[in-house]
């Protein structure tokens, strides 16, 4: 026998994959076996350091890994087979790319000699996933595998985080080669994300902030991605400056919803005060957000009189949609620290009393007002009740996409980062249930609730089975209005109330469905029964499908109508038929 056989770093490609996961501190992965990953599953079987969660569909693995990543700050890992396994990952990969979630996907591939032959379960995985990953690799030589795996983890978690994919042909999984632990030289020399902000730009920013009369801080998911230090510094900056702060959907929780400077979320379904503050401000500090079209509304009327400071780690976010005056490229935690240091040394808290008085007037409009009913549960009321019932508990919220998502963002107050998992950029219906599975795996003793809609939840309902198998007591809180609510809302507002295919015909009996999966089903119709039912849901230590029957035709307001500016919001009390028709005047257009 040669000496090499005693070298502990000599191993098969499949063993290298498991070893690399362990070396990167991965304790849980989400996956689904298949022909092209069997060698890896064989390795997984023979060890106990990495726990594998078997999902019911690869999309579920991807979203679960996203939920895991978003709630922990660590990368999420998914393992899928070739062909359909890989194509089913396209949605979660794109979702993670849009929301900057660190995800490492390992996919099996047909053996190298069959690549390009239209082999069974072959697809061009790296070709298909190239535009929906931050980077991807096809590994043709087992001796490149360790380097690629380490680089994959590095790329996914540094700079602007994002999904990566490593495609490993089956013969490479079987082949024996040399493994090495992570080392610096594993990374492309061309990849060097900037962390530290430019000192001159930071001084310019501080000078703008110090002389602001009508300032606003607009923070985003980047602050949460940057880590706990960034959140701490953001809160300190708000304290030191006394500025009002709003946030994007992705940024909720970085500043506590109970904080006195909190304006609520901004954007299409943001609060009136947040959007008006953005529109009329004279200095805007954008931290880790990207001026998305749901935030800006009409671009040429977006905050017309303000000087804009933009902190982002990704240079391509700067000046993409909105021209800014002081761009600062780097990690927002790092830059917030520098800004605070200079501000504290050289500036005084600006006097912005008049600005706060103005904001108080906007707040008084009470833009999240809705009329409670004794007969039927209003969806907003349901979210508020859920929020009250979970206050003080260790709670994580995921959502699907639609009206319920916006109501959750409006009415559920987040005090801490990493507690709110939602599909912001891609808007993936079906995200919330598997994401909740991932969150619960990461936080087995916490209360994990997926706020869902009756339509969205059916897109990935099969993951109930995963939750039951692994005894993950996730709570699926369905706001059941028997419609694809947001689609219907747009049809009502924009398409002459022609409700084309937005009614949820033939809904399943969610209680029976829960029981069929081995979970618990609850249903509530009356407002008076709601609180009790929520308590029951929380106390059950099993997966629950909670069928909350809500007012069918309630719509989500306030709302910035088509092509309008922030100061042209439609408030709930104005949302009668006539005003709505006027606000949305014009023809139809494809969205």
């Amino acid at each position, binding site marked *: 026998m040669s000496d090499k056989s005693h070298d502990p770093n000599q191993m098969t490609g499949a063993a290298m994959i498991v070893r690399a996961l362990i070396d990167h501190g991965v304790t849980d992965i989400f996956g689904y076996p298949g022909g092209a990953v069997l060698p890896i599953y064989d390795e997984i079987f023979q060890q106990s350091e990495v726990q594998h969660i078997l999902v019911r569909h690869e999309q579920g693995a991807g979203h679960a890994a996203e939920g895991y990543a978003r709630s922990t700050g660590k990368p999420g890992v998914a393992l899928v087979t070739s062909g359909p396994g890989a194509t089913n990952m396209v949605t979660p990969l794109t979702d993670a790319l849009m929301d900057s979630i660190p995800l490492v996907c390992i996919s099996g591939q047909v053996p190298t000699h069959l690549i390009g032959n239209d082999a069974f379960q072959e697809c061009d995985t790296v*070709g298909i996933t190239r535009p929906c990953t931050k980077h991807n690799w096809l590994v043709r030589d087992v001796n490149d595998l360790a380097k690629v795996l380490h680089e994959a983890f590095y*790329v996914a978690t540094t700079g602007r985080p994002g999904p990566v994919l490593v495609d490993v042909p089956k013969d490479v999984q079987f082949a024996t080669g040399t493994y090495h632990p992570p080392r610096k030289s594993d990374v*492309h020399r061309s990849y060097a994300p900037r962390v530290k902000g430019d000192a001159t730009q930071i001084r310019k920013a501080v000078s703008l902030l110090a002389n602001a009369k009508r300032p606003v801080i607009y923070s985003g998911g980047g602050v949460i991605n940057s880590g706990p230090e960034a959140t701490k510094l953001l809160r300190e900056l708000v304290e030191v400056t006394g500025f009002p702060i709003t946030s994007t959907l992705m940024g909720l929780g970085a500043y506590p919803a109970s904080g006195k400077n909190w304006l609520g979320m901004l954007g299409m379904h943001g609060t009136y005060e947040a959007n008006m503050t953005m529109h009329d401000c004279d200095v805007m500090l954008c931290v880790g957000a990207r001026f998305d079209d749901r935030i800006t509304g009409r*671009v040429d009327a977006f905050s017309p009189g303000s000087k804009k400071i933009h902190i982002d780690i990704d240079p*391509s976010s700067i*000046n993409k949609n909105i021209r800014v005056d002081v761009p600062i490229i780097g990690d927002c935690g790092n830059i917030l620290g520098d800004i605070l240091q200079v501000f504290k040394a050289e500036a005084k808290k600006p006097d912005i009393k008049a600005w706060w008085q103005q904001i108080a007037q906007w707040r008084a409009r009470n833009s999240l007002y809705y009329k409670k009913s004794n007969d039927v549960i209003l969806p907003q009321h349901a979210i508020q009740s859920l929020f009250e019932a979970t206050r003080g508990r260790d709670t994580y919220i995921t959502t699907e996409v639609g009206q319920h998502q916006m109501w959750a963002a409006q009415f559920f107050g987040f005090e801490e980062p990493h507690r709110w998992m939602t599909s912001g950029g891609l808007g993936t219906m079906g995200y919330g249930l598997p994401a909740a599975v991932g969150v619960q795996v990461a936080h087995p003793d916490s209360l994990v609730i997926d706020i869902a809609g009756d339509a969205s939840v059916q897109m990935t309902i099969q993951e109930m089975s995963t939750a039951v198998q692994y005894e993950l007591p996730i709570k699926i809180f369905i706001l059941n209005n028997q419609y694809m609510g947001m689609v219907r809302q747009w049809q009502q507002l*924009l398409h002459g109330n022609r409700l084309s295919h937005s009614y949820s015909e033939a809904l399943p009996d969610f209680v029976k469905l829960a029981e069929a999966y081995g979970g618990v089903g609850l249903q509530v119709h009356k407002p008076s029964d709601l609180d009790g039912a929520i308590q029951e849901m929380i106390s059950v230590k099993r997966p629950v499908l909670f069928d909350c029957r809500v007012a069918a035709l309630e719509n989500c307001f306030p709302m910035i109508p*088509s092509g309008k500016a922030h100061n042209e919001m439609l408030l709930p009390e104005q949302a009668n038929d006539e005003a709505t028709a006027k606000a949305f005047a014009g023809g139809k*257009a494809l969205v």
Partner: protein
Amino acid sequence: MNQPASAYFIEERHDPNETHTLSVLVQNEPGVLARVIGLFSGRGYNIESLTVSETEAQKHLSRITIVTTGTPMVIEQIKHQLDRMIPVYRVVDMTQTKRSIERELAMVKVRGQGEHRVEALRLADAFRARVIDATTESFVFEITGNTDKINQFIDLMRPLGLVEVSRTGVAAIGRGPEGM
């Protein structure tokens, strides 16, 4: 204004377009060209011309020269989007530096007899194009220069019996002693 009923911003901005030549230094690895081209097609950017070849084999470096058009905001986006790709080392806007030389090579096939043939040869001489293939009724000219010069030559050949053209696309390099 009669805005279409959509929550998207549907109006387009109509800033004037500019043409820029970008030099992109990349790690020469499988798929790198597909990444660059996919970025352009995926985000709706224009490619007027694209040349690519390995330039330093030992370091596995390739140089891609892209001629693109867009509004100043789009050009800035293109540069940032290229720069953030993992295998991209550097992106230099040769047009912005105003200190670059651009060359393109074309092979131009012309078919004709008599006075047309003589005239084609005479013009080729004036443009310093070389004859690299000849038959009794045709020439293939090789011409090097910037894009305008080559366009002009091709236009002149058209009435003289232009058959076909093969062009390399633009390659660019900065003036002076420094590399990119």
